[in-house]
């Protein structure tokens, strides 16, 4: 009955068509890009900040949690409603409200797809710099929540460096402005706090993003190595040579095999690793850097170098990298993607450790990462249908995270803590640290109401909640359909 009223109220606030509640419909909101599951009691797709606020207030009155969802490409279980409740999905909030080339900024709704901003800004020679590999699908709301990174963040910084201001809906259902049109507002930097808050502090309903002018010249280089080791040494050597490439990415053998099957990038089957390096800036400077990079790579044993100058050629070189994660689905029925970060110089050692750990567990691993940032993504290949495999993969994941932390790194480079890594938080933060974060969350009035079960360590499992929901819906019988 309570659920029925909740749904009725959401319907009158947002329109009948935009509230989903049938079991088959809720089913497809129980996942994101991870292997976690959790089913909501209702999904609502608001069309305005006011509707978001109304939905939050309704959920609050009914004492159920709210979880925001963008495109569901997240890789830490962030958009999964661990505690059931209401999912607020943003695909209809997908308008670019303002493009302001003079001040090099755009005002966008949270459901706008990352790449669409650059497409729209292209007419003015501008673009939005953070470029997660999922940029064709993921939303700005999700990017802000996860402080998403991407290949080009090596030079330009992650999402947080490109957000000038936000409009949010608080856990109380109030619409609040954070930051300003210029990015520098007096007082505390509220925007900075909100970027990376993983939907646990507030729901973003608008973002003012920075646009950058397209560089005069861009050169993309692909260097092929026989050994992973040579490639990771080249990474350090390039930076040590004083070059700051716009992007510096690495893929190992398994990744290349998958990519080759997906996009026919022309990678030699026996190569050990490839580096994708992009330099950009003024034409002369770029040509100079490109030559320097080639020299370093050759010195370290690169057996082949490919160069892309035209946009088409460059896109071809990039295609493999951008499709790499998805392509791994070709190698195994499931993969578990890890996201750790270590000091760049420790990359070769940590990488060896990762390979050794995977071998010990008997899993294949495909590595693809933002090497320049020391941000590694080992992808453990497995079959979730094999009993016990998922648990073992998660144990292995914990071990690899430990490797990163021990090497002076951290448990997430860009995918966020979410549900998956909440229990590793204690490895890097003291109890006092966690207490401060909890107080911050309380200051936003968001305790257990916004995206519960994320970021903070808990013992409650998302899965338990999900199976409870499934059972409840099954028990409810026809009532599940209202």
């Amino acid at each position, binding site marked *: 009955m309570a659920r029925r009223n909740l749904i009725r109220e959401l319907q009158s606030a947002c329109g009948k068509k935009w509230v989903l509640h049938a079991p088959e419909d809720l*089913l*497809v909101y129980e996942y994101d890009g991870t*292997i976690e*599951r959790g089913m909501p009691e209702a999904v609502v797709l608001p069309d305005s900040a006011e509707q978001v606020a109304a939905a939050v207030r309704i959920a609050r009155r009914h004492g159920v949690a709210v979880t925001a969802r963008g495109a569901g490409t997240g890789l830490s279980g962030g958009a999964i409603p661990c505690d059931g409740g209401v999912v607020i999905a943003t695909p209809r909030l*997908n308008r670019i409200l303002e493009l302001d080339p003079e001040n090099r900024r755009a005002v966008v709704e949270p459901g706008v797809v990352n790449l669409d901003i650059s497409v729209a800004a292209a007419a003015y020679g501008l673009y939005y710099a953070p470029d997660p590999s999922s940029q064709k*699908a993921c939303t700005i709301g999700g990017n802000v929540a996860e402080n998403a990174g991407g290949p080009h963040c090596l030079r330009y910084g992650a999402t947080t460096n490109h957000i000038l201001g936000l409009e949010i809906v608080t856990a109380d259902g109030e619409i609040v402005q954070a930051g300003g049109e210029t990015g520098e507002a007096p007082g505390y930097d509220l925007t900075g706090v909100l970027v990376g808050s993983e939907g646990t502090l507030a729901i973003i309903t608008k973002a003012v993003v920075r646009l950058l002018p397209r560089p005069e010249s861009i050169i993309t280089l692909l260097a092929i190595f026989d050994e992973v080791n040579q490639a990771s040494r080249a990474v350090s050597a390039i930076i040590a040579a004083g070059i700051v490439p716009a992007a510096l990415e690495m893929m190992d053998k398994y990744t290349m095999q998958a990519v080759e099957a997906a996009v026919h990038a022309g990678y030699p089957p026996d190569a050990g690793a490839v580096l994708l390096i992009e330099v950009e800036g003024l034409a002369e400077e770029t040509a100079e850097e490109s030559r320097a990079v080639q020299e370093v790579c050759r010195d370290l044993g690169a057996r082949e170098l490919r160069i892309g100058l035209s946009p088409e050629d460059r896109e071809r070189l990039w295609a493999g990298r951008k499709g790499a994660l*998805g*392509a*791994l689905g070709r190698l195994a029925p499931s993969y578990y993607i890890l996201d750790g970060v270590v000091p760049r110089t420790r990359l070769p050692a940590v990488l060896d450790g990762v390979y050794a750990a995977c071998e010990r567990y008997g899993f294949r691993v495909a590595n693809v990462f933002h090497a320049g940032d020391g941000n590694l993504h080992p992808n453990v290949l497995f079959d979730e249908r094999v009993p016990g495999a998922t648990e073992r993969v998660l144990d292995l994941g914990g071990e690899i995270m430990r490797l990163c932390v021990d090497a002076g790194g951290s448990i997430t480079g860009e995918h966020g803590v979410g549900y998956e890594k909440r229990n590793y938080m204690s490895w890097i933060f003291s109890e006092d640290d966690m207490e401060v974060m909890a107080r911050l969350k309380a200051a936003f009035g968001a305790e257990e109401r916004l995206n519960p079960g994320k970021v903070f360590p808990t013992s409650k499992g998302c899965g338990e909640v999900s199976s409870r929901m499934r059972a409840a819906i099954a028990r409810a019988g026809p009532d599940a359909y209202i």
Partner: protein
Amino acid sequence: MATPPPIRAPVGARLIAPSETDLSRCVRCGLCLQHCPTYLATGLETESPRGRLYLMRALAEGVAQPTANAVGHLDQCLQCRNCEAVCPSGVPYGRVMEAARAQVLAGGRAPLSWRLRALFLRQVIARPGRLALVAAALRLYRACGLRAVAERIPVLRDRVLFAPTVAGRPFRRTGVIARPQGAVQRRVALLTGCIMPLAYGRVHEATARVLALNGCEVTAPAEQVCCGALHAHNGDRETAAALARRNVDAFLAAGADAVVVNSAGCGAAMKEYGALLAEEPDYAEKARRLAETVRDVHEFLADLPFAPPASGPELTVTYQDSCHLAHAQGIAGAPRLILAAIPGLRLLEMAHADRCCGSAGVYSLTQPQMSLRLLDEKMREIAATGAAVIATANPGCMSQLEAGARRHGLRVRVAHAVELLDEAYRDSGAGV
């Protein structure tokens, strides 16, 4: 920790359901979302490739039941396979959807609309005599002016818009239908199909002339039947397989170097005959062998390569990719290559040329609302190019775009790309 639900055995005695291997290929990365016309139109995960795959998995495992709501999400899928073309993980979406629909249809709980549709496809589309009667009625409907009237009545307008256009002389020739002037360089067999000869006989005539001019002897085997694509797409695999077997026999007997198809949907289906009949000992090998010789007409001409026409009329043309050519067969370059080779022709690309126009087989009839929505968007993008001609590669798309032009009062002509090549040859005085 959330472990995914266990895989249960498919319901029913026979294993009609998408295979576990195909289903588990989807890693839920979401990279297909922005390519799916129905997701873009609604923003709903339930109308997205990823959502549908998850639902089909639940149906196959018996976790979800084929309720009207669930089946509705399968219905809303255009089967345009845009998602499949962009999926980095190689999910064979088209195959999964066909199997899922077959599972629902065989499961005994299929909605009445599905059973009626299957009956219509089996009893009318696959029966040339009956189909000709329907075509005659549609021809009369248009010729006597009733259509023009009906499309002007506001309450009727949207309902009657998608009645297929049937005009011009039907194509009924069989046997050798065209010969080159000089020596025969290639012998090809033409799939005449079910709808094309009735609705757009002129496209077959143009295809035959163009092929002959490029050194091909063209046969239309008399024993051939409908390719079965519509049946497979709508879950009636048995009829699809029965039709496929007859075509395999008919075309192998013709012994041509290639089977040339000028309808994208049919070409895609025939290229998949090997997979469709893979489990049938008598046919598996033959079907695979035949499928290897199937070529879309643009693909065939581009590979020959065709002789560029010496001149052509001044024309502005925009090209609408037919989904089953661009996405199912991966052919987007060849039609453009052909158009670009025509002197005097200016190719004006529209935005999102590879996005479905909403025709999608019988979709415009079964899901008119979504179909209209996609069509309206398409016509706006076409109008923005200012082109005088829309070229495309499939009879369904032609009919849909013609309907769109009427609805939007756009004075554009819709043509098959090969028709334009044929006209250019004739303009330059080449002939057979």
